[in-house]
């Protein structure tokens, strides 16, 4: 479903990714772990198409299409979703308006009918409820005044509403307490565990992985994948740290 081949990328002319290769077949959840500065967020941004993140070599194919040739909004319409490590605040724009415009833009570009205001609000309320979020928060401006944990939960509500094929979740677990972690973990399983979907889960910690149970775990260090394994690898990293695990 997602195939990354020898991906090299630079940010402000500084090489950050130095040949990442990774294949996530449909129906699987893969985790990427790694120390700070290893390139995890850069990989997420390159896949979503953030301006300023330049690919110098290698390629990415998504459902057989050349992902890197697509604009960010085209990637979204093709079914790619990035859960932001630091969700962005947009004063003056309500969450409902933001998500309705997003969803309908995606639907239009896929040749599907747009959702009416009523249909959309029903969908948004359902998804908020499933993630334990007060639906009235969606009337507020996007992420303004939200706590760190609320922002992450709101990212998952967005994922539930947009229903992507493939989600890249960049440290969605940071800033969450234990209860919120379980709710978010359940949300990922409910929304994304399906034979035709896939997830790339970027995390520092093994805790979320106990809820989501990835099929594969990869270690990213200095812009390259240095080890791959199953969930046992994550447990080993949790107890020994990155330096020893790779040595």
């Amino acid at each position, binding site marked *: 479903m997602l195939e990354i081949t020898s991906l090299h990328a630079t940010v402000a002319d500084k090489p950050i990714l130095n040949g990442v290769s990774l294949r996530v077949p449909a129906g699987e959840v893969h985790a990427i772990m790694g120390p700070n500065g290893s390139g995890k967020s850069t990989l997420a941004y390159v896949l*979503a*198409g*953030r*301006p300023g993140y330049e690919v110098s070599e290698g390629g990415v194919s998504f459902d057989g299409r050349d992902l890197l040739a697509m*604009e*960010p*909004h085209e*990637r*979204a*319409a093709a079914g790619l979703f*990035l859960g*932001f490590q630091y*969700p*962005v*605040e*947009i*004063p*003056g*724009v309500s969450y409902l*308006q*933001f*998500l309705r*415009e*997003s*969803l309908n*833009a*995606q639907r239009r*570009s896929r040749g599907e009918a747009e959702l009416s205001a009523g249909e959309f609000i029903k969908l948004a309320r359902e998804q908020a409820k499933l993630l334990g979020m007060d639906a009235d928060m969606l009337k507020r*401006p996007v992420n303004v005044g939200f706590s760190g944990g609320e922002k992450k939960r709101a990212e998952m509500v*967005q994922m539930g509403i*947009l229903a992507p094929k493939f989600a890249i979740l960049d440290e969605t677990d940071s800033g969450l307490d234990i209860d919120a972690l379980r709710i978010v973990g359940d949300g990922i399983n409910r929304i994304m565990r399906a034979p035709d979907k896939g997830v790339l889960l970027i995390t520092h910690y093994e805790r979320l992985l106990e809820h989501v149970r990835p099929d594969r775990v990869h270690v990213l260090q200095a812009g390259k994948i240095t080890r791959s394994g199953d969930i046992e690898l994550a447990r080993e990293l949790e107890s020994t740290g990155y330096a020893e695990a790779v040595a």
Partner: protein
Amino acid sequence: MTAPFPTHRQEEWRYADLDALKPVWEQFAEPMTLTVGPGERLEEIWLPSGDDVQLRRVQLALGSGAKARIFTLNTAAVYGRIELEVSLEECAEFELYGANIGTGLSTNEIVTNVKHIGVGGRSRQTIRSVLNGKAVGSYLGKVEVARGAQKTDAEQSVKAMLLDRGATANCKPELEIFADDVKCAHGATVGELDAMQLFYAESRGMDPAAARALLLEGFAMGLWESAGEPDAIAEAAREALRRAVG
């Protein structure tokens, strides 16, 4: 006798498009006078006429305890000027919500002179500008607090968004205070659309034009929301934004 034609040396005309003004000056030379009696209220919505050159010059006198609230959208294709001279007697309240939305070679300006004469007056001026192309958008706002006008509370909030390197925003709040127990605040910012906000919206599926339009709407539309959303002006502003974003 017609008032003398202004020059750029006069501070309140410094950024004006005098070439555009010249042919129509006779028509606008005399300001219109509005008086709100003690304890009375006035609410006005000034929509653009659609003329290429449009001036509105108003002198507004607020009696004791009078309240006035003015919404205005300044979006002339060549030259638009909203000029307001306001005087506030004791405990009068004045609120102005104004937007300059311009593109091309247009000049749009809001020029105010708010005079607190009596004790305990309150004034609020909130101005937002969205400028594309080589457009100029200005706010020149003078607040005068007379010697006896203690407990005056005056605020000016001015923000401008530039969508093109060629666009210009001028923000000039000015205070002249002769009383010692007053609160006068002003804030002015000039910025561009935030790249991370744009990317966030695009990553959710909006194309770049839709993302820009939504962010600008968020920037400018807060103006009308704070006051019960006069629909006509919000809709006109939305349309002007669409034109300006192109």
